[in-house]
């Protein structure tokens, strides 16, 4: 049994960690947090140069063709460093959708530009309050144009390539939904940046008015493709969450060792030790579930839907748990803008919602477990 990353993959993780420690210290994250930049352009360029953007994209489309396990270890480091770049929208959502459903021409047109950092991509799925559901999609596609509004769209205000979930029929079935590909620079789509919990990652409202769009995948296949894209993104996001959980736990541990109160390090009080031990437990469960997701993703196993839902739930819980208790360990200082704790708290809660919230994934997990038990 070899349920672990290979030495090469671990080396890549170390390399990414070193790169991010140097290029993406908390100070750099704060430039975006404070609204001075929409994202860290220099870091994005660095990601392209390091080959992070195309690591899972096949060589024939300009990528490194390494694979998804390699992408998982990079995602972990992106999460640990709170990298303020549109990595997840571009790589987990847009590139994955293209690789799953794109025609050869579409892949040729977009994937090399994603790998090189020229193009930022995203997925426009949500239309206001609520979880992923075909019924919630009202934005209409007809005669090659889109009309309607999407919000929130992660990195929507800076995206060049937008994958849009649109309604092409009204029969009440999943096949009412089709996917489209929009070149944001071609016009017809207007973006409005929205304030959000985690300003280090942008959110936007996109309004499509007779916006020209080309189909991505077969008509009526949209929901099925989306489900697969969300599963794949759930595993990759879980690694970001695992990286963030570990960092929040380390921050809490380090502070508990340094901070003296009542004449002793606060980490010697059981109330604090036990809180940190529980954070370690959550982070460990999340990591193990994420590894299973990584295995299923990298082998395209039939277990992927169930593994993705488990990874998603476990990692969401762990990051929220570690981020909030990291603030608690820090006491009053943890609640200041100056300390970095709140950046993890913000990211943890934003990541918990982006692909659909916990209640959505809980439902998915139980459905998928029942399906397996019935089979």
């Amino acid at each position, binding site marked *: *049994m*070899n*349920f*672990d*990353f*290979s030495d090469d993959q671990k080396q890549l993780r170390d390399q990414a960690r070193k790169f991010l420690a140097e290029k993406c210290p908390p100070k750099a994250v704060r430039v975006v947090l404070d609204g001075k930049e929409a994202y860290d352009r220099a870091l994005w360029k660095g990601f392209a140069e390091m080959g992070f953007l195309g690591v899972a994209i096949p060589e024939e489309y300009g990528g490194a063709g390494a694979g998804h*396990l390699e992408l998982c270890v990079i995602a972990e480091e992106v999460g640990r460093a709170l990298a303020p770049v549109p990595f997840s929208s571009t790589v987990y959502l847009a590139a994955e959708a293209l690789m799953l459903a794109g025609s050869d021409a579409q892949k040729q047109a977009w994937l090399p530009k994603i790998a090189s950092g020229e193009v930022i991509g995203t997925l426009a799925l949500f239309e206001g309050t609520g979880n992923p559901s075909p019924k919630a999609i009202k934005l209409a596609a007809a005669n090659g144009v889109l009309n309607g509004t999407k919000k929130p769209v992660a990195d929507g205000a800076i995206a060049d390539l937008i994958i849009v979930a649109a309604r092409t029929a009204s029969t009440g079935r999943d096949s009412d939904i089709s996917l489209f590909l929009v070149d944001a620079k071609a016009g017809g789509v207007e973006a409005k940046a929205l304030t959000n919990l985690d300003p280090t990652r942008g959110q936007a409202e996109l309004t499509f008015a007779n916006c020209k769009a080309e189909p991505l995948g077969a008509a009526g296949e949209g929901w099925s493709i989306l489900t697969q894209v969300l599963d794949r993104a759930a595993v990759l996001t879980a690694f970001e969450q695992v990286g963030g959980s570990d960092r929040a*736990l380390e921050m809490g*541990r380090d502070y*508990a*060792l340094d901070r003296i109160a009542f004449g*002793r*390090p606060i*980490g*010697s009080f*059981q109330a*604090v*030790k*036990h809180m*940190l*031990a*529980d954070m*370690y*437990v959550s982070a*460990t*469960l*999340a*990591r*193990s*579930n994420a*590894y*299973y997701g*990584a*295995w299923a993703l*990298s*082998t395209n196993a039939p277990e992927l839907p169930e593994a993705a*839902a*488990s990874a998603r*739930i*476990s990692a969401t*819980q762990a990051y929220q748990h570690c981020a909030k208790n990291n603030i608690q360990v820090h006491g009053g200082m943890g609640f200041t803008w100056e300390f970095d704790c709140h950046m993890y708290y913000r990211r943890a809660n934003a990541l918990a919602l982006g692909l659909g919230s916990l*209640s959505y*994934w*809980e*439902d998915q*997990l*139980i459905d998928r*477990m*029942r399906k397996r*038990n019935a089979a």
Partner: protein
Amino acid sequence: MNFDDTPQEAAFRAEARAWIAANAPKQYEDELRASSLGRTALKNANILEVAKAWQKKKADAGWACLHWPKEYGGRGASPIERVIWQQEEGPFGKLSAMFIIGHGMCGPTVMAYASEQHKREYLPPLASGEKVWCQLFSEPAGGSDVAGLRTRAEKRGDEWVINGQKIWTSGAHYSDYGILLTRTDPTVPKHKGLTMFFLDMKSPGVEVRPIKQASGHSDFNEVYFTDVVIPDSQRLGAVNDGWNVALTTLMNERMSIGAGVATGFPELFDFCSNLMLDDRAAIDDRNVRSKLANWAVKASGLKYTSMRAISALSKGERPGPENSIGKLVAGAMVQDVATYALDLQGAAGVLSGPEAELAGRFQAMLLRAPGTRVEGGTDEIMRNIIAERVLGLPGDIRVDKDLPFNQVPTKGRA
């Protein structure tokens, strides 16, 4: 990343599987498979006899205590082979319950500290289950603080005379031997005045009294010592070095990777799939699904944490500290799962025994669960271990650390 055996591992697995298929007591397989926490008994057989017979059969064919050296009754197998065996033994592994303390804790301690002659004499019958061992550490005044124990051992010529009381001794009532931690010097701080021995449980002056547990069952005992004589040759380790010897024992306590810990989740998932609430299955209810999903990811998290440890063993590495979470997570979870299963039953959840849902399976689990959060290290001790050994946080400030043991306060309120 994969779940595949190496060719060597696959060969070992095939050999183990074939032997188990030909030799295991299959007439009990269904009952063992269906047993869960709080209920491992056989309807028409004495489980202790069945367990001893299975253990002896394994030992005769070289499948007992796989990781022990051959000369002491083992197989000299690698850690990963031991894990593979546990996976293949499956439900029949539940028959090993009565040997866990002896094989997991007493054996390694004897192996580390006894004379060569004693090792060759005592270890093979321990491995084969012909002799059962227990561990006599906990006392009324020393549970989590085991070094606070008060049972005295006094030297008399070539012998030691033991007086005192132990408690929570699993299986003392059917054990042949025990390892015993005693106080040999009360005038020095508590960790420095302890000495370890092993003894024949049939020695004159040893009295075993079963404890009736909160669950109504009796798995544990009190053991009283009145002028019990132990030859000095049965001392394990140096006089007053018993704490270090005990650490060897305790370090082995939680090293059972791969056996899988009981969480109650598979039972609950089945139950919710079949139970009707109003006019639909419980599993179609939003609240039930949410609860199930939360427990599902804990159960899978534990499973894949254990897979990571097994992978380390397979590569010949030491597993990381991740495995220390198993008991902590599973112990609390099984209690919550049982409580919730009863909640779903409404007022009828109060019934236990044959008239209850599933013949009282979750009720038995509920009543046994508090014990799992205490035995083998309480939840609080487990959290301390994670905080100190894994996260590197400071140990507690111990007010009795440098105090001579006979000056440590014995009562909270005067």
